[in-house]
C-alpha cells in the first residue's frame, strides 16, 4: 500500500465517521477497525502491516480534520510497553481481546515490574505466584508504578519457581487491577507529588489464560517490554532549545539583573549540550530511517539525565533568593509529569529522577560499556544458584 492508497483509507474513515458528528469512542473504534490506529500493526489488530514511518501521515491528516485522539499521554504505558509485548508474545485470542480497548483508551494499563528489593536487579524480584488449577495466586509488593490508581490492567512479572536460578524462575502475566487482592497506595516523592504508587498484592488472582509467553520465560518477555520502551528514547525530533534549557534561557533573556559570569558559562554549556543532543538525535533518526541501527540510544538517556540535572540546578541558582521559593508541597497524584507547568525548584527536584527511572545511569553505563564497547561483564555470583538460596 502506498501513501495515496493510505490517504484514500483516511478519507474514507473521515467520510464515514465525520469527526464533528461522531461520538469520540465510536470514532476511535472505527479508526482502529480501519487499520489506522497504528499502521505498523497487523491487519485486524488496528494496523495495515505498513512501515512505522507512515504513521505520521495518518496522524497529521486526522489532526487536520479535527478528529479526536486516544489521549496518548494518559495511556502511554499501554501503547509503549503493553501493546508491543502483547503483539509479540500474545495468543491470537489475547491480541483480539486486549489491543482494541487498550488503543482506544477504554482500558488503561500500568506496569508492575520493580520491587523495593529489586530495582536495578529486576531479575531478583520476590513477588510469588502459585498455580492452583488454572488460576495463579499472587503475593508480594511492587513499586514505582505510574498510573496504577487509574489503571484497569497491568503487565506484571512474578516468580513462579524459586528453586531455579533467578532469571529462570520468572513468568509474565496480565493482571486485572480491579481484583480485590490488589491495593494501590500513593508513593509520595521528593517533589511532594505522588506520581508513582506502591502496589500490594495479597492473594491476587490471575487466570492462566492471561499469561504472556511460557511459564519460566518471564525474563525474556520483560526484556522485550523494556526494549520497546527504550526504542522511543532518542528517536524523537527535537526543536532547537528544547527541554530544560527553555525556561532558563527565558529567564536569562527577560531578567538581565540576574546574570553573572559563572551562570553564563553554565547556561552556554547547557545550551551547547542541548543542541549537540538535538543533532545526535537527528542523526539517530536518520540512521534508523536508513536501516543502520545506531547504538547511541542508551547513551542518549545518560546525556538527557545529565543535561536536565545541570540546567535545572542552574535555574534555581540563577534565581537566587527567588529560587528559595517553592510552588506547592500539597500531595497530588498526577498521571504524567509536567516539568514546565511548575517552578524551578520542582524541575530541580524532579530531574533527580531522570538518572534513576527507566534504568539508573549506573546500569546504563554498564550497558554501554558491555554491549557497545565490548568490555567484560561484571563478575556475577548469582547466575547458577537457586533464587531461594541467594543472600538478601
Amino acid at each position, binding site marked *: 500500500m502506498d501513501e495515496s492508497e493510505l490517504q484514500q483509507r483516511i478519507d474514507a474513515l473521515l467520510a464515514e465517521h465525520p469527526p464533528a458528528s461522531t461520538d469520540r469512542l465510536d470514532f476511535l473504534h472505527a479508526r482502529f477497525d480501519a487499520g489506522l490506529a497504528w499502521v505498523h500493526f497487523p491487519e485486524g489488530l488496528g494496523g495495515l502491516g505498513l512501515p512505522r514511518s507512515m504513521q505520521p501521515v495518518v496522524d497529521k491528516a486526522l489532526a487536520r480534520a479535527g478528529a479526536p485522539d486516544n489521549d496518548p499521554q494518559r495511556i502511554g504505558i499501554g501503547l509503549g510497553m503493553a501493546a508491543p509485548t502483547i503483539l509479540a508474545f500474545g495468543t491470537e485470542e489475547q491480541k483480539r481481546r486486549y489491543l482494541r480497548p487498550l488503543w482506544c483508551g477504554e482500558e488503561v494499563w500500568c506496569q508492575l515490574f*520493580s520491587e*523495593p528489593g*529489586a*530495582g*536495578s*536487579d529486576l531479575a*531478583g524480584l520476590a513477588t510469588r505466584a502459585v498455580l492452583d488449577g488454572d488460576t495463579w495466586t499472587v503475593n508480594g509488593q511492587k*513499586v*514505582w508504578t505510574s498510573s496504577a490508581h487509574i489503571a484497569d490492567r497491568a503487565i506484571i512479572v512474578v516468580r513462579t519457581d524459586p528453586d531455579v536460578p533467578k532469571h529462570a524462575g520468572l513468568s509474565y502475566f496480565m493482571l486485572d487491577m480491579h481484583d480485590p487482592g490488589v491495593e494501590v497506595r500513593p*508513593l*509520595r*516523592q*521528593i517533589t*511532594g507529588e505522588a506520581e508513582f504508587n506502591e502496589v500490594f498484592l495479597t492473594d491476587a488472582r490471575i487466570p492462566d489464560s492471561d499469561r504472556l509467553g511460557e511459564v519460566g520465560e518471564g525474563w525474556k518477555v520483560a526484556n522485550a517490554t523494556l526494549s520497546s520502551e527504550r526504542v522511543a528514547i532518542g528517536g524523537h525530533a527535537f526543536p532547537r532549545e528544547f527541554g530544560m534549557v527553555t525556561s532558563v534561557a527565558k529567564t536569562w533573556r527577560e531578567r538581565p539583573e540576574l546574570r*553573572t*559570569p*559563572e*551562570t553564563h558559562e553554565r547556561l552556554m554549556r547547557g545550551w551547547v549540550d542541548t543542541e549537540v543532543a538535538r543533532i545526535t538525535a537527528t542523526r539517530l533518526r536518520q540512521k534508523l530511517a536508513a536501516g543502520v541501527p545506531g547504538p547511541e540510544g542508551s547513551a542518549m538517556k545518560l546525556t538527557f539525565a545529565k543535561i536536565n*540535572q545541570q540546567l535545572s*540546578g542552574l535555574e*534555581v*541558582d540563577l534565581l*537566587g*533568593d527567588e*529560587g*528559595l*521559593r*517553592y*510552588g*506547592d*508541597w*500539597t*500531595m497530588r497524584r498526577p498521571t504524567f509529569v509536567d516539568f514546565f507547568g511548575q517552578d524551578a*525548584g520542582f524541575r*530541580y*527536584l524532579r530531574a*533527580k*529522577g531522570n*538518572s*534513576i*527511572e527507566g534504568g*539508573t*545511569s*549506573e546500569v546504563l*553505563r554498564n550497558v554501554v560499556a558491555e554491549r557497545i564497547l565490548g568490555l567484560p561483564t*561484571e563478575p*556475577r*555470583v*548469582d547466575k547458577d*544458584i537457586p533464587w531461594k538460596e*541467594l*543472600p*538478601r
Partner: protein
Amino acid sequence: MTTTPADVNLLPDDVELDLRGSVRKVLEKHAPVEKLNAMYDDTDDVTAPLWSAFSDLGLPGLLVPEDLGGAGASAREAAAVLEEIGRAAAPSPFLTSSVVATTVLAALGDTTVLPALASGEQTAALLAGAPVGLPADVLLVPEGDALYAVRGATSTTVTSLDMTRPLADVDLAGAERTLLSEDARAAIDTGLLMGAGLLASEQVGVARWALETTIAYLKERRQFGRVVGGFQALKHRLADLYAEVEQADAAARYAAATLAASDPDAPVAVHVAASYCSEVAVHATEEAVQLHGGLGMTWEHPAHLHLKRAKADALLLGSAESHRAALALLVDLPAPAAG
C-alpha cells in the same frame, strides 16, 4: 592577602566535643527525621520544643557576652552546633538569631535586645535580602548606614524549597521601630561574615550526613547477588566524595577558628569555606539521592530533606560564585575588565 597566615588549632577540644554530644542528643530527641516531613504539610511540631531544649543548653546565648547573660563562647562552639543542626536538617533560628543577629548586636555593643536573645526568650533576624528566616520577635532593619530594631511587623510565611528553614515575607508598615545605631555598616558586615563562615559548618554537617548515610545503605543493599557498595564505580565516587567532605570539614573549621580569634585572615577563610562547602553539600546530597536509587526520591527517606537544605543553604548568604568573587578581590586576582 597571599602571605601565609599563622597556624590556628583545627582540632576540637573537650569542651567542643561535649557540646557536640549534648546537641546531638537533643536533636535526636526533638528533631527526629520522621517529624520533619510534616513541616512540608505546614505542621511544625519540632521548632518550638527544639528551641526550648536548645535554650536549656544555653545555645542561644553562646555568642552573647557573659555580662549580658550569654556564654561568651566563640565561633568554634557555634560551628559545632551548626554542624549538628546540618546533620539533622533541623529547623532552628540558631543561625539567623543566635549567630547573625547576635553578632551584629554584639558588634554594636547593644544591651537592649541581646539579653532576651541570650536566654532564647526572643529571637531576632537581620533583614538583609528577602525572604528572611522567620518567625522572629525582633527584626534588624538596615536603612542606609543606620540599623533599627523593629517589633510587631506582619509576616507572611513563604512556601519554600527547604521547609526546615521557615522563611517569610515581612511588611514593616505600622511596626514599632527603635534606632540601634547610626553607623551599623561594619557591624552588619561582621554579622554576615560570621553567618557565611558558620553556615559552612552546617553545610559540612549536611554533607557528612549524606556521605555516611549513603555508605551505610550501600553496605546493606544487595543487587545482583552482591553488596552494592562493592561495585567499583560507586566506590570511586564515594572515595572522591569522602575527600571532598574531609576537606570541606577542614575549611569550615579554619573559618570558624579565624572568626573565633578575630584573625585578620577571617575574610579569606570565610569566602574559601563558604564557596567550597556550599558546593560539597549540594554534591554530597545529590549523590545520596542518586545512590539510594528510587528510595532516595521518596518522601519516606530523609535524603530529600538534606538535598533541599543543601540547595537552599547554597542560596542563603551568598552564592559560591559571589564568595569566589569577593575572594578574588582579597587575594589580588581581579576579574577581567569588561570586554
